[in-house]
């Protein structure tokens, strides 16, 4: 199945190197099973590459998405509230479609950030539970975690947050293809 194929390689430019390229990040070079906190120049470089990757996705750019954090199999992406993204003008609440796009992108980024370095990924399915309306005017962030990955499938969960950090706007779970 070719599936959706929307998340390309996290290449800096062309086929020059994956986000998990040896040159870019060496999470496993020194310590075995290194899953420590993402700090230092490697992490910075990884984040810079992910930002560059997102910049090249026209729809992510159109929505104003920015990668704010990246770790092994984890990603956080933020975007600004804008009046044109509103789903109900009587309340100013963001449309669910915006939340979907953000969650989907963030889940894809988490898959790409897995230490095994997938070449690309595509959404197989994504379920979103909308727990409450996002507060009008507040920026929205998604946090995604790839909690299991096989040779060909990645399982991801995510949540969307506004300023009220402990009270998610929505949660998502999805299955993604893994291209090796």
């Amino acid at each position, binding site marked *: 199945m070719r599936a959706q194929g929307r998340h390309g390689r996290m290449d800096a430019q062309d086929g020059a190197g994956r986000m998990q390229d040896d040159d870019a990040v060496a999470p496993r070079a020194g310590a075995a099973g290194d899953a420590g906190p993402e700090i230092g120049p490697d992490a910075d470089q990884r984040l810079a590459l992910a930002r560059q990757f997102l910049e090249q996705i026209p729809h*992510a750019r159109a929505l104003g998405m920015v990668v704010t954090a990246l770790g092994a199999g984890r990603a956080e992406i933020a975007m600004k509230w804008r009046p044109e993204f509103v789903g109900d003008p009587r309340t100013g609440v963001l449309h669910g479609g915006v939340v979907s796009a953000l969650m989907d992108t963030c889940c*894809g980024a988490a898959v790409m950030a897995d230490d095994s370095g997938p070449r690309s990924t595509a959404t197989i399915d994504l379920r979103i539970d909308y727990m409450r309306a996002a507060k009008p005017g507040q920026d929205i962030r998604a946090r995604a975690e790839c909690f299991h990955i096989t040779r060909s499938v990645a399982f991801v969960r995510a949540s969307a947050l506004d300023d009220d950090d402990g009270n998610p706007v929505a949660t998502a779970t999805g299955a993604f293809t893994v291209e090796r």
Partner: protein
Amino acid sequence: MADRNEPLAQVKSRRDTALATLVGGVPYIAWLGVRFDRRGDELTAVLPFADRLIGNPMLPALHGGVTAAFLEVSAIVGLTWTALWDDMEAGRIAPDVARPDSLPRLPKTIDFTVDYLRSGLPRDSYARSRILRLGRRYASVQVEAWQDNRDRPFAQATGHFLMPQG
């Protein structure tokens, strides 16, 4: 029972005004570029292709979020349209394009599950929704999107919605 002798122009104007009010009241629908074709009570959502909808520039392919959003927009408009049809036809509501609040509030999405069946091509997309159940409080909707071939959908979704009260 519909009035057989009601002037055709009046019938069309009533329905088109209601649809324009419903769709025009949502900024995000305009931003995404979705419009609706109407044949009687049947709605087809149309998403003309645009570069800013791309999620994978290498292929290229539509962004999965665009697909999800298009399906959700189609489901919400389809559900609202079905829910207001009787009131609209009976003249119990008077939609006014200049006043989005002349229509009942929109349903709220409880959950929405998208299946991605194949890659979304850089082409126009179409979607139709089917109301599986419309209750007083909850509704279930199925929606399917296709591009070149109606029989080869590239995505489908099911969602549950909370209907506006009062």
